[in-house]
């Protein structure tokens, strides 16, 4: 599915990306590839959805927004109905079903921190279920990169 040059690009770019006029050229030189080849391979990795994005990860709170992880205990018979209700909120960025009594886990991203509690109250009101609000208190940065 991917070859050694793809792996080298992925492993290299996890360590960061050069900020200069021709960053792909710098990456290419480092890996012994041509700039065009790096661009084509990145496009291919994005097209195959092996990479979901190539760009910045922002710190939501520093941009004035609100961000939290929330969970619900959804009765299995109501799962599809509640999932549709929750996903209808534009503030829901991710939603995963997980194997636990707390079986629905979603990320809320809002334009202001105050909006988080308002969205949670709306979800509780619509679903009749208690939302567990689990905001991040601290992020620990990963020391090692993921080698593929």
């Amino acid at each position: 599915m991917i070859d050694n040059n793809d792996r080298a690009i992925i492993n290299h770019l996890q360590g960061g990306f050069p900020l200069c006029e021709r960053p792909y050229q710098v990456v290419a030189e480092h890996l012994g590839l041509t700039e065009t080849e790096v661009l084509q391979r990145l496009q291919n990795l994005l097209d195959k959805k092996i990479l979901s994005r190539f760009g910045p990860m922002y710190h939501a709170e520093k941009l004035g927004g609100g961000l939290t992880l929330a969970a619900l205990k959804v009765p299995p018979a109501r799962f599809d109905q509640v999932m549709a209700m929750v996903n209808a909120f534009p503030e829901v960025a991710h939603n995963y079903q997980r194997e636990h009594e707390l079986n629905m886990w979603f990320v809320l991203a809002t334009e202001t921190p105050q909006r988080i509690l308002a969205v949670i109250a709306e979800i509780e009101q619509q679903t009749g279920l208690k939302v567990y609000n689990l905001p991040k208190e601290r992020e620990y940065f990963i020391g090692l990169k993921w080698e593929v």
Partner: protein
Amino acid sequence: MYQPDAIDWQIIEYIQEGLPLVHRPYAPLATQLGLSETHLTSRIANLHHTGIIKRFGIVIHHRRLGYQANGMVVWDVPDEQLIDTAQHFTQFVHVTLCYQRSRHLPQWPYNLFTMIHGLNRQHVIAHVAALNEACGSFPHEILFSQQCFKQCGAHYVNPIKTEVKPCDRQ
């Protein structure tokens, strides 16, 4: 705390969907903003330095690379051991995220969340056992994901403009 100005916000909006895959990826935005590419990249470096950009690079879809199992592992770590334990966790290659979150007692005693990827569930279970052994044995649970229903990421909108864009990529 650094407050992004109007130019920063245009940069934040422009690059959030990803950097263009062209030889000079900063040139179109630099032209649009009337800046040199060097000035633009120094602005991006500043956004990185101030922590507004946490990371600049690639986001891997682990599942597409054959890592079929993803477990959110939640740990109940005594408060006084929390920082050391979390920093220890981040040194393990299978840990891809590590967050401290508030407990909801008595129903939810867990205060440390890690994401662990593996080729299959048995691998995740083995990684978690090794982690637990190495870092000091704490009560924990693995919450395997069954299905992902929505993944559109957060979308940031320039507050200096009035337009509001909902997240519509589903």
